[in-house]
């Protein structure tokens, strides 16, 4: 479980996060949504420890991140997996090399044990014939799956994804969403996804946090988002005609 309390982050004059408090539960897919510039990425990077907040605290299973030493922070990070928006695969390494990298760095496994684990996670993300290809030789969807495989290879407690299906076609985006949700349930991971893909919100958003201008405007589940009266949320989530109709049908059905 990740608990966030009164988080503030500024860059010079720009006050990006303004007192965010929330929690992310284990075994759930938690989504952070909001318009571009609302502070989603900054919030995610604060959770990862890549940005240091000026005020507030973030606790992982009760361990307050800011109170940890640099080495303790790095040890904690070994329990985190991250899927970056641009995948952030090491372009000088093959797919296999990328996935094996955390194992080589942090485990004492033999070569064959590492190979077995890599084969297993690549199979888990439905990548079978890409072991010896370089990131530049595979598609965006495959890169995302490699990034997910690399993120889960160490059995992390926490999985963070920054817009995991941006730039992907709808079918591949759904595959990636389903994969993340399956992995979250299978390994009982605390998953936090930064997204503005409304399909993801509806499909896998067990907990949704809506950010607006650096404030937490709303939080709830994908069921509750249909019922909410919060104008900012409805304006953002149901900005397209299709989603407006979906919401209307849902409400009519309920009544």
């Amino acid at each position, binding site marked *: 479980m990740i608990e966030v309390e009164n988080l503030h982050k500024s860059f010079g004059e720009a006050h990006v996060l303004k007192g965010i408090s929330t929690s992310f539960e284990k075994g759930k897919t938690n989504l952070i949504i909001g318009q571009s510039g609302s502070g989603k990425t900054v919030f995610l990077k604060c959770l990862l420890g890549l940005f240091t907040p000026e005020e507030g605290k973030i606790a992982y299973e009760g361990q307050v991140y800011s109170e940890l030493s640099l080495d303790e922070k*790095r040890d904690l*990070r*070994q329990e985190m997996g991250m899927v970056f928006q641009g995948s*952030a695969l090491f*372009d000088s390494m093959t797919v296999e090399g990328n996935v094996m990298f955390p194992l*080589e*760095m942090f485990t004492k496994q033999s070569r064959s044990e590492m190979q077995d684990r890599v084969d297993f996670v690549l199979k888990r993300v439905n990548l079978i014939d890409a072991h010896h290809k370089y990131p530049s030789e595979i598609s965006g969807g495959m890169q995302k799956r490699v990034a997910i495989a690399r993120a889960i290879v160490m059995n992390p407690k926490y999985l963070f994804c920054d817009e995991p299906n941006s730039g992907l076609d709808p079918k591949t985006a759904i595959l990636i969403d389903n994969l993340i949700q399956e992995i979250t349930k299978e390994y009982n991971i605390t998953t936090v996804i930064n997204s503005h893909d409304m399909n993801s919100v509806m499909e896998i958003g067990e907990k949704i946090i809506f950010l607006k201008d650096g404030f937490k405007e709303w939080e709830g589940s994908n069921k509750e988002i249909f019922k909410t009266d919060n104008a900012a949320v409805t304006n953002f989530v149901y900005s397209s005609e299709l989603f407006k109709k979906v919401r209307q049908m849902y409400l009519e059905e309920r009544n």
Partner: protein
Amino acid sequence: MNYIASIGSYAIMVKEVFKKPTKWSVMKSLILKEIDELVYGSMGIIIFISIFIGGVVAIQTALNLTNPLIPKNLIGFATRQSVILEFAPTFTSIIMAGKVGSYITSSIGTMRVTEQIDALEVMGVNSLNYLVFPKIIAMLLYPFVVAIAMYVGIFGGWAAGVFGGHTSSADFIQGLQLDFIPFHVSYSFIKSLVFAIVIATVPSYHGYYMKGGALEVGKASTTSFVWTSVVIIILNFILTSLLLG
């Protein structure tokens, strides 16, 4: 004020490089890769430039010896002194700042832009140790490159002097042995070792802390070459004053 802040963050970066070391089995292969890339990969250009620089020094000296009372062995003497004291350690380091320095800045800068450094940090890897430490260790072999540059430069001077008809081989070799001070070679190696650390760390600093996109990677490479050269020139003056002054 910005310069002072940059010097401060450079010092912090260097300190961070030696913290939380990467697993030795991984580091070993990284060091070998960097030796191949930074040192072995630079040998060709260093040998090529050194031959011609040595040759030019010999020809220039010969052409300026208009007084018949000055012995011809001065050509060998001047070539040796110029190559050992300055051309091999300093001139070669400026070339390396361009070749190796821009490679280091652009490769680390690209990793920064594409979030690969963030990926390392999130995994719990000390990215500075992983990226910069193997480069520093690889560059500790740089004095060997300078030694080769010295040998090849003097050979270039001999070839240009003898085959250009400016001096005899015996005169040139006699000049090489004239008033030889072994400490000059040590001085040159000390300088090249200091320059090696500068060549490995200053471009790394510019790549690691760069902000922006692909265009900024190019700008950072240029800036890193300028600052690496400036630092080498200043340190050359300081070390010469301290060791020979």
